[in-house]
């Protein structure tokens, strides 16, 4: 690295540092890949209040409140989180701000860790808000600071869009100067601006249009968008990470790089288009820029040759535009897939093992590690749509099926997802007399995104003690009469609890409670692992059907079976890897042949 102020940072680390340098005082978010590390890192800076909110709508509203009080505020979320936060988003566009307000959306092209790959640039258009879009960590850092300045200058919330290949890419960034809000912190009453009832909102609606006009002028003035001179045979308009791929695929070409992807600099685009022989618009996902550029009457190419699905890369950009340049590659080797799996000792496995044995039930799943319960050998999930939808989909099915659905509908949701939007669905299920069973997988943490605390964990974002919501009391308070807490590692008790709940003639909640094995206190504890007494193994495969990564099957031929002293027809035996085993005991509970034991038992 070139000088002492240079740092090697991920985009998310750089954005956290930028928020600190920008003088952000309040930041709220809900964990979601690829956005999570922004709040995690920001929580380590002094003088910034940070929190995990139960969902993105709550998080954005907290940030709006802080901005109304005259401080700089940040709300972070993954792309689908903006759907949850869309209600306040569209109206804060009308109210504007006092302190600067930035709403960060982390999109996930290719769906590395998401259920869809929506392109959130469309929100900027729909909510009539400016959107800035950096290309790499260094630019993200500078641009986030500019976003706060812009927010206060134009009295507008600013959308800030990153993608996975900015969030989780490391690069060289520099420390910068500290800024602070131009607004004054304090209560300032301006009902005409902040009370959005129809008559007042109609007035603000005009302000929004005037503001878009101002923003269009700013888009034209070169603060965020720049032309990089080059070969004019082919010109490129591009933004975000796609800009990097264009620079590598066509290093000689003229480029209009857009840092502000909404509103667009119409005059600059037209002028640039006039200077090049052929114009290409290179962007990931939707033809967002392309459609708006074509609507200006500018001829260009884009999604006719560049994919509108998945991530781009240099190779895709080059070969989409020059198909003859495709290199000859070594053919892929045929290999078994290696999908992710629930961890050894994961408490969710005990529930999904039992669900896998209930062939005539429909398991309405949700978003979290436990979505992996869908994968073989457990294969125990029948739907998964969005955060909180497990509860509501089961209710909808129960109303559609009537008596035919009784005892056959189970929704499965994690503790954090239940706090996010599951509770609303539960209220509805009780209010409207549902007949289904809700299983809350309470592992005390938001696990999938990397162990973030939530309102039921008992700790805040900094790990300090906080009020822990009592999930069973919460369920009882909304009217659930049957609430049973079960230890999922106790396979038999778990089975009985599920069976009993399904047989009841009323809505029932089963809380499966055991901590995530990735929690530091579990991960770093000394485990007493289970071991296999292989000579006792009859090869029944009961333990293997758990799909635990610590258990593997060793196949045998007839001859091998006989030579090892097994019955000729035994096809193999199971072995536990003691290093991987966390000692949960689920396999021990399933073994009928005394082939699984541990020291001292």
């Amino acid at each position, binding site marked *: *690295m*070139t000088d002492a102020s240079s740092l*090697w940072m*991920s985009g998310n680390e750089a954005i956290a540092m930028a928020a600190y340098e920008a003088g952000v005082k309040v930041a709220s978010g809900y964990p979601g*890949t*690829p956005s*999570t*590390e922004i709040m995690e890192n920001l929580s380590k800076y002094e003088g910034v209040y940070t929190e995990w909110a139960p969902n993105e709508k709550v998080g954005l509203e907290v940030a709006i409140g802080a901005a109304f009080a005259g401080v700089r505020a940040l709300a972070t979320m993954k792309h689908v989180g903006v759907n949850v936060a869309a209600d306040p988003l569209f109206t804060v566009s009308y109210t504007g701000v006092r302190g600067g307000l930035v709403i960060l959306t982390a999109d996930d092209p290719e769906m*590395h*860790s998401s259920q869809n790959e929506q392109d959130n640039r469309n929100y900027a258009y729909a909510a009539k808000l400016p959107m800035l879009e950096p290309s*790499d960590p260094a630019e993200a850092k500078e641009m986030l600071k500019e976003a706060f300045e812009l927010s206060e200058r134009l009295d507008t919330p600013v959308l800030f869009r990153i993608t996975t*290949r900015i969030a*989780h*890419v*490391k*690069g*060289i960034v520099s420390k910068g100067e500290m800024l602070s809000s131009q607004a004054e912190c304090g209560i300032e009453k301006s009902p005409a601006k902040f009370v959005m009832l129809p008559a007042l909102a109609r007035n603000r609606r005009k302000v929004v249009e005037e503001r878009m006009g101002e923003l269009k002028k700013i888009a034209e003035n070169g603060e965020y968008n720049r032309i990089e001179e080059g070969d004019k045979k082919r010109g490129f308009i591009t933004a975000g990470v796609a800009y*990097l*791929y264009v*620079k*590598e695929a066509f290093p000689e070409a003229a480029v209009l790089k857009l840092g502000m992807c909404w509103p667009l600099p119409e005059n600059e685009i037209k002028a640039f288009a006039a200077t090049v022989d052929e114009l290409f618009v290179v962007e990931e996902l939707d033809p967002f820029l392309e459609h708006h550029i074509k609507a200006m009457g500018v001829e260009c190419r884009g999604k006719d040759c560049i994919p509108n699905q998945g*991530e781009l*890369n*240099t*190779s895709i950009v080059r070969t989409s535009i020059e198909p003859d340049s495709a*290199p*000859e*590659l*070594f*053919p*892929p*080797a045929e*290999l*078994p*897939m*290696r*999908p*992710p*799996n*629930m*961890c050894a000792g994961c408490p969710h496995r005990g529930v999904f093992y039992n669900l896998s044995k209930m062939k005539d039930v429909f398991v309405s799943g949700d978003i979290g*590690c436990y979505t*992996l319960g869908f*994968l*073989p*050998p457990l294969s125990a999930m029948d739907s998964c749509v969005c955060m909180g939808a497990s509860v509501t989909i089961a209710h909808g099915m129960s109303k559609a099926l009537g008596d035919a659905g009784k005892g056959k509908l189970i929704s499965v949701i994690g503790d954090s997802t239940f706090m996010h939007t599951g509770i609303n669905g539960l209220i509805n299920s009780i209010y409207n007399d549902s007949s289904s069973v809700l299983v809350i997988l309470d592992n005390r943490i938001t696990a*999938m*995104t*990397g162990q973030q605390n939530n309102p039921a964990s008992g700790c805040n974002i900094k790990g300090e003690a906080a009020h822990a919501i009592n999930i069973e009391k919460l369920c009882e308070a909304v009217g659930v009469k049957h609430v049973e807490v079960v230890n999922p590692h106790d396979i038999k008790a778990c089975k009985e609890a599920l069976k009993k709940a399904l047989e009841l003639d009323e809505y029932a909640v089963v809380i499966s409670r055991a901590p995530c094995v*990735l929690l530091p206190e579990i991960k770093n504890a000394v485990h007493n692992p289970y071991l296999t007494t292989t000579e006792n193994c009859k090869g029944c*495969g009961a333990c*293997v*059907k758990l*799909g635990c*990564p610590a*258990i*593997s*099957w060793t*196949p045998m031929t007839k001859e091998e079976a006989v030579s090892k002293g097994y019955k000729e027809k035994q096809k*193999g035996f199971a072995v536990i890897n003691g290093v991987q085993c966390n000692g949960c005991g689920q396999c021990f509970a399933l073994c009928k042949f005394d082939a699984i034991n541990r020291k001292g038992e």
Partner: protein
Amino acid sequence: MSTTGNILFSGVGGQGILLASEITAYALLSAGYDAKKSEVHGMAQRGGSVTAQLRYGKKVYSPLIEPGKADILISFELMETARYLPYLHKESKVIVNSQQIKPPAVANGQVAYPVNALDSITAQGVEVVVVDAFDIAQEAGEVKAANVVMVGAMSTFLPMDVSVYEEIINTRVPERFREVNLKAFAAGRKITD
């Protein structure tokens, strides 16, 4: 040795790929290169296939390595090496940890582990160096340092002196692991030196 390059790290979540790629990145940065690295988060701790892509040179734009352009493939698990065959070219260097970790379909007995997976690479005429990183790390005093053994084995293919790596380990690794990591690095480097 080239002054621009693409290093692809592959393996299974939990093998220390991120630390190995960080040490390599810091070594390249202290030698004055620009660099970018793409990581896989979220699923990294759930036992799935994991990669880190590290690119260096005078100026790096894209954080992603193009297929056919990985100069070094450093793989922490045997069969995971072959998964990235389309990223290699004839002159690629491939460094493989001999450790085998069974994927679910192998662990539950559906298919056999592809023990000859490296043949698909050598059949293309690409040089493969196999390192028993697990055993070497154990000898150095800590099996968890297998990732640093691998970095040592790779270091002879990169344009930095040993002292650069030693400095990184001395400044970036917690004190109680420094000595064992320095030993692991040296033992790994000996294999390809």
